[in-house]
């Protein structure tokens, strides 16, 4: 488990930031993205896959959450 930060990028998409390793990447897909349920599996531009325990959609971004690395680089 690692702390990650999800923020809105300038192009309107989501970006992923892992402070511990200073890794920043675009989020290409997020499993749940509704007001009631947000999170689940997220896929990154570099091929990495992380899992965030689904929560109600955050009122605003960025938000720091715990995430588990499922697959991929780093």
């Amino acid at each position, binding site marked *: 488990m690692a702390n990650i*930060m999800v923020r809105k990028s300038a192009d309107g998409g989501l970006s992923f930031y892992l*402070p511990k390793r*200073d*890794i920043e990447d675009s989020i290409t897909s997020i499993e749940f993205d509704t007001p009631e349920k947000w999170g689940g599996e997220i896929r990154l*531009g570099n091929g990495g896959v992380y899992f965030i325990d689904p929560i109600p959609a955050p009122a605003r971004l*960025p938000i*720091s959450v715990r995430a588990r690395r499922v697959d991929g680089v780093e």
Partner: protein
Amino acid sequence: MSELTREQAQALIEEVLEVYPEKAKKDRAKHLMVNDKTIEQSKKCITSNRKSVPGVMTQRGCAYAGSKGVVWGPIKDIIDISHGPVGCGAYSRGGRRNYYAGTSGVDSFCDINFTSDFQEKDIVFGGDKKLAKLIDELEGLFPLSKGISVQSECPVGLIGDDIEAVAKKKQAEIGKVIVPVRCEGFRGVSQSLGHHIANDAVRDWIISNRDDKAFESTPYDVAILGDYNIGGDAWASRILLEEMGLRVVAQWSGDGTLAEMENTPKVKLNLLHCYRSMNYIARHMEEKYAIPWLEYNFFGPTKIAESLRDIASHFDDKIKEGAERVIAKYTPAMNAIIAKYKPRLQGKKVMLYVGGLRPRHTIGAYEDLGMEVIGAGYEFAHNDDYDRTMKEMKDATLIYDDVTGYEFEEFVRQLKPDLIGSGIKEKYAFHKMGVPFRQLHSWDYSGPYHGFDGFAVFARDMDMTVNNPCWGMLKAPWLKEEESTGELKAA
């Protein structure tokens, strides 16, 4: 030297790597690349932020240097204790000429070296008592300081001193902010982790200090982060922001004060000049206080105008008009500078190897002068820095990460640039090779280079370096051709 093709550039890298043993070669190959603008993500072709290969000459610093020298040192009214042996502090004591307005030793402390000067007995018995005593002494001698930071050097982490406990106790006693910073030099692979640790310490001990205090804010409040006021850079930037109608609340590590930092969570926009060393705290403020942040670039008129418009786009029409007014006001002066220097510098080739932001930020300024950057690299960048750099650089230029002394010299020998911009450790090697050189960490005792005023100084400095007649006279006597020695004898 004519421009290289991609193949030639790749061949050059391979030729340079030839001398290394197999393992080192494999490792170093990952840090060198030929730029390809079609690639979006640098990590596919360059590795960064890794441990340097033992045995090569690297130009990196340590985490302590990143924290003490870069982030904390230039905050003028905080006393930074170099906690540990005396030596480490010497090289991080305002050596980059972070200017400040104030009286040294009275209300400003950037250029004084405070150290707990560890001796053998402090290593054996621990240094906590000494630290407490030192803080009392500082309080007696420098009562106008606003806070104290304890910058741990390597031994402090090794012997397991509890500087946090001392800091807490003393903070309660003297009623000033005392920040323990765990930036021991052995952490991480370069000074970069020190920046991160320093940012985290600011986050934990400073940023929320005034959360429930009233603050008279305006809709136009901004803070300048990551401008280290080298030779007055931040001042040359600040006046532009103020001229366009913004109010600069804080200047952080460049003529900044503790109070300014504590007030930063009240601003509307954080302006980030050096992304590498200050993005951490900007991200934190974005999450906690919903303050957006923006990277800007105040080198050279093209980038300054771009940045001013970018900054203005976060505000209303008044500021947008202000930005246009500022750009219009300075354009004639900038055109005059370009008219004067461009003919003297047109087509000259530059190679850069610096720290946090300059290898990409100065490219625009060189291009304004008609110069071309043919190689760029960073001492301690991460992949996000290279992502940004690749977009600024031309195709088939060289990009080198944590370049070794040997590689850099070899690249220069082959590419024959007209100017090198790098640090003090490279300076004299290239002087001896007779290559024009500017020290781009401290502006070679010049500056400011930021802002419109800074560009005037930048252009003049580049001209007087590149076109200086001295470079042709630096050939070692034994390398001179026969006939010229003959002539000398005859004369």
